């Protein structure tokens, strides 16, 4: 039987605020265990939470960027479960009255845009971390992460393939990075994702039984885990079995998902409106102020790149896939102020290729936009050919020289003087009189041979267009 795949994602973004969500501790990753804690984030008796306004601000930004309605008042609730990394025995989260609701975002898959619904975005505190490794028979708890602010975005079950799920996660990550509210570092758990996935026979309207999946901390793992789970569920269904509602963990080492807990072990979180925090009121003025502060978002930037720089949808989408890459491209274009398409080709081709090869990201790129712009300028004004430009690029990359300095030092300036070109052509024709005769006799294909010989003689520095022109003229003059 053929099945439709139905996927919904829950994305957790750690916010880059100066302090934690309910106390004054630093939320910055990497400190010695339990050094960034206080009685409040340790859940001591008698202390109370005070909401960090910057978290609400970030929530409004995320909501506006994803076309959500901003709810006022929105309400914090306590979500109860016992675990050593959860100091109070409950997580302060939002339940039935979250800050953002009814939004959407667009993804581009196979050249088509698709709208994915966002059920909600809510604010909550992160838990700490239990540590077992390297400890003999005991576990330790690090509560530095307890109280770090999170936004959790829950999608509608609108995703229909692992590709769409990955595109959605990339888009979500991109948006929060554009907004400057989250670093989006998945390796550090700065951005995390859970998935709900179910299958249903093609044509059936009702959703099948869903499985919740956790521990997919990269785009690759998300894709692999979903692909694995689709195969597993398909097999179960084809063998006449039923899908069990459960939570499964992705085991990246073994490439499988494994049951973590079944429905009967599911927590009853006993949500309770948080009596220590007043409902959060968000004035229209506040929303208007955030609207004014919003940076250009990925979709808007992509559309502008298409219209302003004449790029294709595909090129514009790739260039705006991260804020850093888009900024790099735009700085390069602005430094030269011409040839956005050539610049696009160089950024997406030579530069991205080299960065991938080196395993470097664009924000650590050793070549400045001004350096690349100098190279593009040299191509555009005919100083060097596109071919020579690749040599110049390789020599320029990693230095602090300008493109012109490299070109001059290496003597790579393109020869564009007709007299000099003629001086290169004449010896070639003289040495190949038989081929000249054959050409003149009608063997047009030999033209390429002469071009090759002349370019070789010029060590690639002859202006190719001029070589074509002069060669035609000089050959004709021998007829």
């Amino acid at each position, binding site marked *: 039987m053929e099945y439709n795949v139905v996927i919904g994602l829950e994305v957790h973004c750690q916010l880059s605020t100066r302090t934690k969500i309910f106390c004054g501790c630093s939320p910055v990753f990497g400190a010695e265990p339990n050094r960034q804690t206080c*009685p409040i984030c*340790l*859940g*001591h*008796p*008698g*202390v*109370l*939470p*005070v*909401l960090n306004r910057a978290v609400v601000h970030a929530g409004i930004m995320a909501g506006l960027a994803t076309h959500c309605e901003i709810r006022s008042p929105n309400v914090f609730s*306590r979500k*109860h479960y*016992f675990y*050593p990394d959860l*100091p*109070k*025995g*409950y997580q302060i989260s939002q339940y039935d009255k979250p800050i953002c609701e009814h939004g959407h975002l667009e993804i581009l898959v196979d050249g088509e845009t698709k709208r994915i619904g966002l059920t909600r975005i809510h604010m909550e505190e992160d838990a700490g971390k239990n540590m077992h490794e390297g400890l003999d028979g005991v576990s330790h*708890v690090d509560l530095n992460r307890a109280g770090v602010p999170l936004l959790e975005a829950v999608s509608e079950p609108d995703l229909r393939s692992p590709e769409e799920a990955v595109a959605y996660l990339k888009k979500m990550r991109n948006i929060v990075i554009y907004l400057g509210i989250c670093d989006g570092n998945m390796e550090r758990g700065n951005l995390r994702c859970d998935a709900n996935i179910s299958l249903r026979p093609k044509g059936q309207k009702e959703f099948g039984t869903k499985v919740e999946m956790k521990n997919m901390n990269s785009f690759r793992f998300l894709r692999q885990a979903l692909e694995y789970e689709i195969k597993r569920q398909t097999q179960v269904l084809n063998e006449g079995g039923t899908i069990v509602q459960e939570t499964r963990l992705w085991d990246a080492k073994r490439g499988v998902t494994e049951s973590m807990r079944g429905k009967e072990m599911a927590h*009853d979180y*006993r*949500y*309770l409106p948080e*009596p*220590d*925090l*007043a409902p959060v009121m968000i004035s229209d003025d506040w929303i208007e102020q955030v609207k004014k502060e919003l940076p250009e978002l990925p979709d808007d930037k992509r559309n502008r790149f298409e219209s302003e720089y004449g790029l294709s949808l595909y090129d514009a989408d790739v260039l705006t896939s991260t804020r850093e890459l888009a900024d790099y491209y735009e700085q390069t274009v602005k430094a030269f102020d011409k040839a956005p398409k050539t610049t696009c080709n160089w950024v997406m081709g030579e530069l991205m290729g080299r960065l991938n090869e080196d395993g470097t990201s664009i924000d650590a790129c050793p070549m400045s936009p001004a350096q690349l712009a100098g190279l593009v300028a040299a191509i555009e004004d005919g100083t060097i050919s596109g071919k020579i430009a690749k040599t110049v690029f390789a020599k320029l990359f990693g230095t602090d020289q300008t493109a012109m300095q490299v070109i001059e030092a290496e003597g790579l300036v393109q020869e564009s003087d007709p007299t000099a070109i003629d001086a290169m052509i004449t010896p070639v024709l003289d040495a190949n009189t038989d081929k000249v005769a054959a050409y003149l006799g009608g063997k047009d294909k030999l033209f390429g041979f002469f071009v090759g010989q002349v370019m070789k003689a010029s060590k690639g520095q002859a202006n190719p267009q001029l070589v074509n022109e002069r060669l035609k003229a000089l050959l004709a003059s021998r007829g």
Partner: protein
Amino acid sequence: MEPYTWTLHEARAKLDAGDISAVELTASLLYRIEQVEPQVLAYNCVAPELVEAQAEAADHLIHDGKAGPLTGLGIALKDNMITQDLPTTCSARLLEGFVSPTDGTIAAKLKEAGSVVMGKTNMDEFAMGSSTENSATEATRNPWDLNRAPGGSSGGSAAAVAADLCLAALGSDTGGSIRQPASLCGVVGMKPTYGRVSRYGLVAFASSLDQIGPLTKDVEDAALLLNAVSGNDPLDSTSSKREAPDFMDGLKDGVAGMRIGVPKEYFIDGTDPAVLTAVQSAIQQMTKLGAEIVEISLPHTPYAVSTYYLIATAEASSNLARFDGVRYGNRVDNGGDLLAMYMATREAGFGPEVKRRIMLGTYALSAGYYDAYYKKAQQVRSLIAQDLTEAFEQVDVLLTPTSPTGAFKLGERTADPLKMYLSDIYTISANLAGVPAISQPCGLDGNGVPIGLQFIGRSFDEASVLKAAWAFENATDFHTARPAL
């Protein structure tokens, strides 16, 4: 009279006049504690060296002309207010020996005011109870009759004030836990409006109901102590941004023309006739003083106790989840897994009443029961609050008994939790509605133990409540009666 018998304002006058030093005043209190505390058992902890050091510091402030209203005055704190230099146990085995790394706002305010914190007073475990018998240590005794309970949960604070073991005390009131023990011990006890006093540093029982307030020897002292602890606190998001007035202003203006409501639902069967008689004469007294008595109705009163026990237990089950033995408190590690550690710790660390309430509250919040219990209780809570709002359109304050009976015998009600819960029948509505209320002595019952009179006021109108109470006190001498110890 011995200095330990003084009120706050009497002691203030003597200190300011130089008739006595803070060190001498404190020595008198420590002497009294040495003599009487072994019988009353009001304190969980007194640290004489700390007390003396604070008194010396207070004398310096007085000498330098920097004394405030509370400088040098010995005040006791209920043992659910966190303090850096004394343990905070909530009278729970689980927190035995626990010392907080920080002071709560109220402890910090008292320190800043130069007052002398005498110690931490006994209470029902985690403030759950009405007799102080639910303490992991021994039950506090009622100074009027050592075989009787002082009420609760702030029984230690009330007994300490009644027995002159401090000049005044602070307690916390979730359903009557300041007013009921004040009533049973013959002292003044006030629950301010919810949000008037910071809860930062108060170990939470039921967060939406808890409020810290004074227990004092007279109404003027209640106003003075309330002045010292009131006001917005950025560390407590539920504390009101309203500026607190000076509660001494207008305190002694009298009640001529004041409209006093008497809710008929507060004079029901099961209330001791001696209590009814005492409160009736209080009503006559208020009429004599020029107040107008209006009979009113608060129709949802019969639902208050059940509403309270759903909301309070639900919040308690949540608030007490943090006591898991992981970060602080007494862990019981029986060598089993994590769940076994949690269960052994909480089994050994909590007493029966706390366990009962955690179970009730957990049940009320469980999937499938939330709407029928917690949500419904919140709806009824709104109706009870609305009753009061409507009543306060007609009258300025309400007058009621504080407790249906005087002090009961130790052990008399411990076997019957429901009967114990009914001790709070007249005090609970003020917590549910968040309004201020005061209890003051208005007579003695057939057993020779005190009866309490309650005034309830509008939100943030503590001033009217205090004014009515002061007028009654000024016209009578019930507050001057002292137990023979």
